[in-house]
């Protein structure tokens, strides 16, 4: 298993609904983000307090309005009272606007910071991390998880405060107006709590089933649509529709139950509150006849009956939001908690001027010469001498895929790796640029252990052309310039010429300014590889790794770019991996790998003379030719 990422432990459960395992820790971390806006949050709390007070007090004003002014017909008093009411209401509206507005600010800032940190952390993680997770899983953290967290911050905080304040305030006012009626209302509130518990619990169970079903459905859709071309070629349409229909149906069933319970909650709660309203009317009426209550109080009280059930409803809804968000936040933080790539390197790659006598002086501009600068400022010229000394490596602890690899590449040498698929060729090159950490042995670069070299410097000194080509959305020019951001247009074009890519680029609708999208989907594999080579050419690195760089380029084109490739490789240490033995023939050393071990080494002539594995491979080719 050379380049295949390892399967993740436990497989995929990317869409699965998980309850947060450590709620307190997650909340604490989240508070770290929201906490930056302490002052604003305080302001929000004040606004909410104010607006809740206004809305409760506004309703309370109804009682004197009816009893003291409307019934006796005191119009100047009524006007005054209405003016007071107007002011109270307006203040309430203003404060609720204020709290909304601030909360939007806080939540957007928080989420934006969270997203930024997540992406930054992701960039610093080792490849090992990505091997064990699907892209979909990570993508969903950026989209779904962030979204739920954002929703929670936006609504939950404010809603929880408003709701609890309203609940306490309204209940207090109800007691003040009439305690007998309040006792009745409290009984109804208990019924509501029971409803929330019963239906809410059922809804949650079904919600989890629905999430599992939607995960399986979306996974299926993703996989099948991505493999749609194969589906077509194999006439597998009907089969795939069947598989889809089955998952679609499971999801529909689970979804129907989940939504039915969740959806029934609102009308049921609303109407329980209305029964409360009815009973209150009745008892209130009887009390009024008895003379212990009055019409104005009844009107105000009825208004409160409507208000008091809202908080229960809202808090119960928020529980779901909060749980979902906490699960999402936990996934986000679990990524952020990953240890980034270790970088304790002290040697840094710098541009140098080389004087005639061989002394080096550091300089700012690109000079074509590089040196390693140690912490104490001493400069060691970069020569491109790479050595492996008894290196063992495995993608997982249990399975070693490279055994006791020792090799050296002297400056300017071309070293080739030959071997069947899965022999460990790509793995070796992954170790040179420290994509993975070795288990045992050492790798040195110009005599320096690569662990002592700054990671960025190390990688900048190595150019790599990968077997899998990846292009970014942007123009052809930008894609080539990816190798070195400060390259001029001329340099980019020169690199494209060198790589033999300019012919096809000129045939593109806009030439170098053609925008490539969807990973350069319109280009053929060969064309993409040419761009890849150009990218490495523009980077102009001292050491070059070519991992099947020309596998999809036909030999004719390869011949055309051979001169360019030769020029590209001239004066550099080059590691080549290729199937075509013709491409590796002129290497100074050819290493034949089998099952993670070097079984033969030498130049072409030596190896043929050895009559070993290489000879067999070569003879096989000869016989076929």
């Amino acid at each position: 298993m050379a380049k295949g990422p390892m399967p993740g432990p436990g497989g995929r459960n990317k869409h699965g609904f998980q309850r947060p395992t450590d709620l307190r820790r997650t909340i604490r971390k989240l508070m770290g983000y929201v906490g930056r806006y302490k002052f604003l949050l305080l302001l929000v709390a004040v606004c909410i307090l104010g607006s809740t007070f206004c809305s409760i007090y506004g309703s309370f004003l109804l009682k004197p309005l009816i009893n003291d002014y409307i019934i006796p017909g005191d119009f100047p008093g009524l006007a005054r009272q209405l003016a007071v009411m107007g002011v109270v209401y307006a203040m309430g509206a203003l404060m609720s606007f204020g709290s909304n507005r601030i909360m939007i600010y806080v939540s957007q800032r928080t989420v934006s910071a969270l997203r930024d940190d997540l992406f930054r952390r992701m960039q610093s993680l080792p490849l090992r991390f990505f091997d064990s997770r699907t892209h979909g899983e990570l993508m969903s953290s950026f989209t779904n998880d962030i979204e739920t967290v954002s929703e929670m911050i936006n609504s939950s905080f404010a809603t929880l405060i408003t709701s609890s304040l309203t609940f306490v305030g309204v209940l207090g006012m109800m007691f003040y107006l009439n305690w007998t009626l309040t006792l009745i209302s409290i009984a109804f509130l208990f019924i509501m709590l029971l409803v929330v518990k019963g239906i809410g619990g059922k809804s949650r169970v079904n919600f989890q089933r629905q999430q599992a079903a939607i995960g399986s459905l979306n996974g299926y859709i993703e996989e099948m649509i991505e493999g749609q071309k194969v589906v077509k070629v194999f006439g597998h349409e009907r089969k795939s529709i069947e598989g889809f229909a089955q998952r679609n149906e499971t999801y529909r069933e689970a979804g129907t139950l989940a939504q039915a319970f969740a959806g029934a909650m609102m009308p049921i709660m609303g109407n329980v509150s209305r029964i409360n309203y009815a009973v209150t009317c009745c008892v209130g009426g009887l009390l009024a006849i008895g003379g212990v209550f009055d019409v104005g109080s009844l009107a105000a009280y009825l208004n409160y009956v409507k208000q008091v059930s809202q908080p229960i409803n809202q808090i119960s809804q928020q529980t779901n939001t909060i749980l979902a968000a906490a699960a999402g936040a936990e996934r986000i933080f679990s990524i952020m908690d990953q240890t980034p790539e270790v970088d304790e390197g002290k040697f840094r790659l710098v541009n140098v001027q080389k004087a005639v006598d061989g002394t080096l002086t550091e300089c700012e501009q690109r000079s074509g010469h590089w040196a390693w600068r140690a912490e104490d400022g001493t400069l060691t010229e970069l020569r491109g001498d790479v050595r492996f000394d008894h290196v063992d490596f495995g993608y997982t602890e249990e399975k070693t895929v490279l055994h006791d690899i020792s090799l050296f590449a002297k400056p300017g040498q071309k070293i080739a790796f030959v071997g069947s698929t899965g022999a460990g060729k790509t793995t070796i090159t992954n170790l040179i640029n420290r994509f993975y950490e070795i288990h045992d042995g050492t790798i040195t670069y110009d005599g320096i252990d690569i662990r002592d070299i700054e990671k960025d410097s190390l990688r900048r000194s190595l150019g790599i052309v990968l077997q899998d080509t990846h292009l970014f959305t942007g123009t052809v020019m930008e894609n080539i310039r990816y190798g070195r951001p400060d390259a001029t247009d001329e340099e980019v074009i020169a690199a494209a010429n060198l790589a033999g890519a300019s012919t096809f680029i000129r045939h593109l609708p806009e030439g170098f300014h053609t925008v490539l999208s969807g990973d350069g989907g319109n280009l053929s594999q060969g064309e993409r590889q040419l761009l890849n080579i150009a990218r490495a050419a523009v980077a102009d690195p001292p050491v070059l790794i070519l991992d099947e760089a020309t596998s999809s380029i036909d030999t004719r084109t390869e011949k055309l770019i051979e001169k360019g490739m030769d020029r590209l490789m001239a004066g550099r240490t080059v590691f080549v991996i290729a199937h075509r033995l013709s491409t590796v023939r002129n290497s100074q050393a050819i290493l034949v790998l089998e099952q993670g071990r070097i079984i033969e080494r030498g130049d072409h002539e030596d190896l043929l003379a050895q009559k070993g594995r290489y000879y067999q491979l070569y003879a096989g080719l000869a016989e076929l030719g």
Partner: protein
Amino acid sequence: MLKQLFPYTKGCRKWIVLGVCCSALESVFELLLPLVMADIVDIGIKNGDQAFILSAGLKMVLMAMFALALGGGAAVLASIASQRFGANLRAAQYAKVQEFSFRNIEHFSTSSLITRLTTDVTMLQNTLFMGMRLLIRAPSMLISALILAIGISTQLSRVFLFVIPLIAVLVVLVISRVRPLFRTLQERTDDLNLVVQENLTAMRVVKSFVREEEEKEKFSQRNLALRSTSEKAFGFMSFLMPLMMLIIYSTIIAVMWIGGHMVFDGTLLVGKLISFFTYVTEILISLMMVSMVFMMLSRAIVCGRRVAEVLTETPEITDSAADPTLTVEDGSVEFDHVYFKYHPTAEGWNLTDINVSIPSGVTVGILGGTGSAKSTLVSLIPRLYEANEGEVRVGGHSIKEYTLEQLRDAVAMVLQKNTLFSGSIRENLRWGRADATDEEIAAACRAACAEEFINAFPDGYDTHIEQGGSNVSGGQKQRLCIARAILRKPKILIFDDSTSAVDTATDARIREALRRDLPGVTKIIIAQRVSSIADADLILVMDDGHISAMGTHEELLQSSSIYREVYQQQQEGVSLHG
């Protein structure tokens, strides 16, 4: 758009109608409550009539219980209806995508198709669910409350003449401003996700060119753009609520002022005033609901359009000219003056005047430079793309005369960029033929040189393949894909450079096995290595979209300079040292 989506409410229309009726009735019952309450105040309390209060109270409780049953029922019905609607939409889209040609798929791009099938449908489904309750409830509340309010006092109801248009204008204003903002928001989100997506797939490139900082910068910029747009959009929306509240409160004050006078004049009873007051709140709350529904609808419309686009896309390649009884008799292939281009508007042709006749059972090699349209040529045989001009014939009939199923059953193709699906190796191989026996599977794997490594896995054929085949190496993947194609027992077998990750020796063994095991099958092989095709019965040399030469290896060495050049270059090492 509604017209296009409406048919997919099939099977849930009765639930929609029933649910809507429940919702509407529920709101009527709810609204009758304040009326009875007014009677309690104006008749019961005023006359001190306990019996009246009790019976009126009972009436209210009963009405509320009815409303409860109706409301709960409406929710259940809405859930049934919306989930079914969603399921229908997904199924219809999925089936439609299955009919798509490659060009159709490329038109939408895979990632956008996935979003349309998942997120967009969920949005529509939720809109129907919410809509069935709110969209019906809000207007029916509004209308019945208005009627009841007018019933109480026409004079007092005049306030609505001011209030309702005011709110309507406000809502329209806000929505028209907010909608474009939300569209921008969506675009910004897509932009951001694109960066993440690209970074995930090209992580090795980013790391090896040490571009982390630039990528972070790129992300931060887009993140900032997204943030500022969403702050603007949501910020604008936050005006709506407080403004509505202000309007509601002013209305209440106006009602109390005018109503107070009327009570004093004796034209209105106190109880009626209180219930009128309740209606005012109900009316205004329902107006707010309407505006919320509009907000939701405006987002749903975008999703609906996207879904409708998929549903109304015309599959480019269909069975319309096919004879369902016709089967592919043999593996002969003919290209008769075939012209093709990917983009209808492009100037030049991708394939120019292709004329070739391949007899059944022969082996054909195709050689040619990068971009010479080798893959394009073979893609026309199983009708993955449709030729613009000329005709492609298989087994003596135009490929349009066969149903796609018949044609593709007879033409197996191993794609350059191939895909394995999550599941066991055996399941993946059975894609070739569902009823293949274990012996047949083993035979196919032997031919594709996949048997050894499969047997080396602890679980053998039951080894689980991860999504996209990420846990097998490139060469292993290619060999599995070849086995899958062989298993299909086709008349024509096409390899589109499908052994590029397989080493030379294995490549030769595979070809040898094909010759031995599949003698009657036409084999078309696109290759980079002359060695892979030198023994073919016919070799096509492609250059810039046309066939520049054809013949056997020996003939081409004489006639084709391109061929000779490629051959010599690949031969060099061999002749010197072989």
